[in-house]
């Protein structure tokens, strides 16, 4: 499983507050009640690093 950060809204410049799960292009919100986000946090805790956001 790999992830990519989302950066900022291209028009407004505000943070998008999500990470993309590259396997299925799912947008996972930074919500600790979301089980996919919990899984992402575990993945980070294992020492993994997400890909940077698109420029």
């Amino acid at each position, binding site marked *: 499983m790999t992830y990519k950060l989302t950066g900022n809204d291209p028009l407004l410049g505000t943070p998008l507050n999500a990470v993309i799960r590259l396997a299925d292009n799912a947008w996972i919100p930074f919500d600790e*009640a979301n089980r996919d*986000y919990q899984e992402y946090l575990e993945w980070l805790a294992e020492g993994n690093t997400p890909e940077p956001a698109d420029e």
Partner: protein
Amino acid sequence: MSLTQIKQSNISSDFSPSYRNLIINGAMQIAQRGTSTTGVTSAGYFACDRFYYYVDSIGTWTVEQSTDAPDGFGNSLKLSCTTADASPAVGDRAILQHRIEGQFLQHLAKGTTSAKKVTLSFWMKSNKTGNMQVNLYDNDNDRFVSGTVTVNASATWEKKTITFVGDTVSGYDNDNAASLLIEWWIDSGTTWTSGTAPTTWQANSAGDRNAGGTLALADSTSNYVNITGVQLEVGESATEFEHRPYGTELSLCQRYYYDPLTYRWLYAITTSDSGNRRGHSDYPVTMRATPTVTPTWGQYTSGTLGLQFSSTQGVTFYSDSVPAGSYTTVIFTAEAEL
């Protein structure tokens, strides 16, 4: 006749839903993800909404919404073994689960001296006869209690009922996380079978989790089990299944998963810059948590597509690279499962 003389069994559930059933989609009517998934080898939600099939290295399965059902029901959830594993490794396991938020369980008074008994009832059918262990697992406190049901006759619909005692030791968290997991053990290795199935609440012990199970449904590709009419209610007796309206049941499911089954348009937000498009979709009900949204293009299939805003109430999509004159639509699913 005074109200105290009316027996529960005399109250029809057909026309006046009481929401006494804590299970969502117990009649397996709702299948937003599709009616069948083949090749299941790992955990996930498949076919019938709200039922999670936890598979850990034991067999390959087809999970489907079946039209085989006992009288009074139109559907069941069917698990069919398509690649057998007759000698599972010690830690392997397959469990059908239903997960319930803690905030929906506070009336059970778990963790107090007033802790209530609950009764689980369901219909099942399997080609194999034998015992299946069914647990109530407290995910907040790592405790569980179990019951065992027996498939007496092959390929025959049978109704099963288990009454579980209350737990006075520790309560469910009052939040939107998974507190109670109902577990139907399909098969497992010996890590989970070496102990004794407890009929009173106890601290989790791996060897007790499936100590009462003998069905071993992963041992042959002939094996299957159908389940429907699942009801969990307060008290010591199983009342008639509460048939809620289809729309009501769908709404309850959409708190956890939503597939709009149609496109959403992305519109240009200024007349001078048609490349910047936005489109919004409200969810039909407030979702349990901010969902994971999986967007894909509809009509237009290249360029940036993402989420500008997302909440438990709805989602706004963006694209910033659409050529002038292009129609742009998006399709998506939103998941906030436990």
